[in-house]
């Protein structure tokens, strides 16, 4: 009796454990999304200025808040006078031009000598400069800003500028530029190119494996494709670096072979196993009756493939391609190693160097101080990457699921 009770308790415990694990792993995606977005969205509630810096102006200057747009215009010297403040000339003082400004004000010698070892006398000096140049805009650490100056709020970084900004310069001081468009375009360009090569190889090979390959050959082919899927992407990246990159450099006569093209070729190989095996399943799912009807009417095997099998399995093949695209978009190491890693807008130049979203995260996260703007911006890029792959995979999965239901 006691033994039975013990067994009963044991089975109840294990059943509870099984259920707990099941529910836990099904909410895992939500937890990942939560963390990713709470870090990433933090970017859009941060002022568009390095977090240890503040902006300050003359106490009589009526401005109380500078939005992101205006700040960049001021820093780029596109705005040179204060509209609301007697048209006073804007005199920008920040870390980059401090020495020059001091010289212009008539101070000779090294700033350390004039201002003290830790720049202790800087606030005092700025105070007197403020009287001469009422249009001064000071962007410095808070303890260098003179008492009299009025601190102004700097507007938040906007989602629009993040998505549409054409410059990715996350370490620019004092106001970094987080335009993710070059990264997004890098990813899109590499994906398009990779897709070209993958489409050339994937579906025909899947068709061969499902329809034509004799059994002994198939028995070798299937593990071969699986093995290709198993090779780590860093190994592909390494091969790309020592084989593809030097050859591309020679063939196209470039300064560096690290190009979009090299990334495309590698990524196509990486996406191939996914595309081949999902397409193969889709082709195998075509009902025999359909095929036999076509063959029975005198169509050749090839005609049957093109006119019957391909149209019937098209949604499945499309799903395979989408899942392949999902892999390409998220792939990191191979792309990081061979595409040259320059965040720039390149148009449709496949021989240029780009930095993709995933590569940006991998390359820059190591240097980004925790909790800073750069750190948050990389999480925001991660969110964008996640959303992109999530949508692509979701559509792919839905297509596969629909196909299975039809059967």
């Amino acid at each position, binding site marked *: 009796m006691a033994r039975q009770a013990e067994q009963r308790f044991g089975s109840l415990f294990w059943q509870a454990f099984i259920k707990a694990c099941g529910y836990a792993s099904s909410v895992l995606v*939500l937890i990942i999304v939560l963390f*990713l977005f709470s870090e990433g969205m933090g970017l859009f509630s941060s002022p568009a200025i390095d977090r240890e810096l503040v902006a300050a102006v003359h106490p009589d200057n009526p401005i109380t808040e500078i939005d992101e747009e205006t700040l960049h215009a001021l820093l780029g010297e596109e705005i040179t006078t204060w509209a609301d403040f007697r048209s006073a000339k804007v005199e920008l003082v920040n870390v980059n031009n401090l020495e020059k400004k001091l010289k212009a004000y008539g101070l000779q010698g090294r700033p350390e000598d004039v201002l003290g070892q830790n720049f202790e006398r800087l606030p005092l000096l700025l105070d007197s400069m403020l009287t001469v140049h009422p249009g001064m805009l000071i962007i410095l650490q808070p303890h260098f800003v003179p008492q009299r100056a009025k601190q102004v709020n700097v507007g938040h970084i906007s989602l629009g500028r993040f998505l549409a900004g054409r410059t990715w310069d996350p370490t620019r001081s004092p106001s970094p530029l987080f335009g993710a468009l070059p990264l997004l375009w890098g990813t899109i360009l590499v994906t398009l190119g990779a897709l070209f090569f993958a489409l050339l190889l994937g579906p025909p090979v899947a068709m061969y494996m499902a329809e034509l390959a004799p059994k002994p050959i198939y028995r070798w082919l299937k593990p071969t494709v699986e093995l290709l899927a198993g090779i780590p992407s*860093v190994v*592909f990246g390494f091969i790309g670096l020592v084989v593809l990159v030097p050859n591309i450099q020679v063939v196209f006569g470039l300064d560096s072979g690290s190009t979009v093209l090299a990334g495309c070729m590698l990524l196509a190989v990486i996406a191939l196993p996914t595309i081949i095996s999902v397409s193969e399943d889709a082709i195998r799912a075509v009902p025999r009756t359909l095929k036999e009807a076509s063959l029975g009417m005198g169509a050749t095997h090839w005609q049957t493939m093109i006119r019957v099998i391909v149209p019937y399995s098209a949604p499945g093949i499309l799903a395979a391609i989408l899942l392949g695209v999902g892999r390409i978009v998220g792939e990191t190491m191979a792309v990081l190693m061979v595409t040259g890693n320059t965040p720039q807008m390149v148009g449709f130049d496949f021989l240029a160097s780009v930095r993709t979203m995933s590569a940006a995260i991998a390359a820059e996260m190591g240097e980004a101080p925790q909790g800073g703007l750069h750190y948050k911006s990389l999480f925001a890029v991660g969110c964008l990457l996640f959303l992109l792959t999530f949508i692509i995979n979701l559509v792919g999965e839905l297509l596969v699921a629909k196909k299975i239901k039809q059967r």
Partner: protein
Amino acid sequence: MKSHHLNQRIAFGVMKGLTLVVVAILAFVILYVVYHGIGSVLSWTFWTDVPRESMTSGGVFPAIVGTLLLTLISITAACLVAIPAGIFMAEYAPRGWLKTGIDIMTNNLAGIPSIVFGLFGMAVFVVGLGFGDSLLAGGLTLAIMVLPVIIRTTEQAVRDIPRDLRAASIAIGATRFQTISRVVLPVALPRIITGIILSIGRVAGETAPILFTVAALYLPQLPHSLLDQAMALPYHLYILSVSSPEPDKSLPLAFGTALILLILVLGLNLVANFIRNYYKKKFKL
């Protein structure tokens, strides 16, 4: 009529040729790495020594140990959750929209880019839970990455058990749980193990999730605890190939490291295939 057959012959020839191209790519990658890496791999010091002279000589011993430990931690953690979760999906999960939702979630979990897992692991394990850059943080990050793979294989393996087996067990008075634990699981186990073995290959070769959760650039001593940093083979290969001070000198070492990774993946695939074929014959599934 003739032209139709000609078309067919051309088309089939093209398909055969393209298949050959894919096989050739794989063969090239393997042979190229073997050819250039065999020299390093055959030397004993490559396996037992630490990297020396800013990674232009010596071996990869700490990276091998690091990768083994990482794999052990992540696979153990993943199996602990994923196998019960897979059984849950196959046996207990209520049918209907909830099940569909969970299915889509798991599938999408599998599609999340590995670098995003790295970000998540960094936010949660390294910073949030305060593990720092450590074996534990990296191992758990990798565990979450392979979770969906093991869940899927377990679910599929359990679901494909023939009805007769279950019916027989229920008919002699076994409870549902007894049927699962004594009849279904033992039969499904070989396939689950196959899935786990393939996951080992994935975990051992993955670089992006460990970039900022565990990987050390250069760390000659072995980790002493779960909270230590460690070197890892894939990250070591990355470092050797992109940021070596003397690329020419470290190239043989890089090829050697790549070859170790290839041997690992190749070996695991062979073992998985062997188990699959062996049990296919044994159980006639």
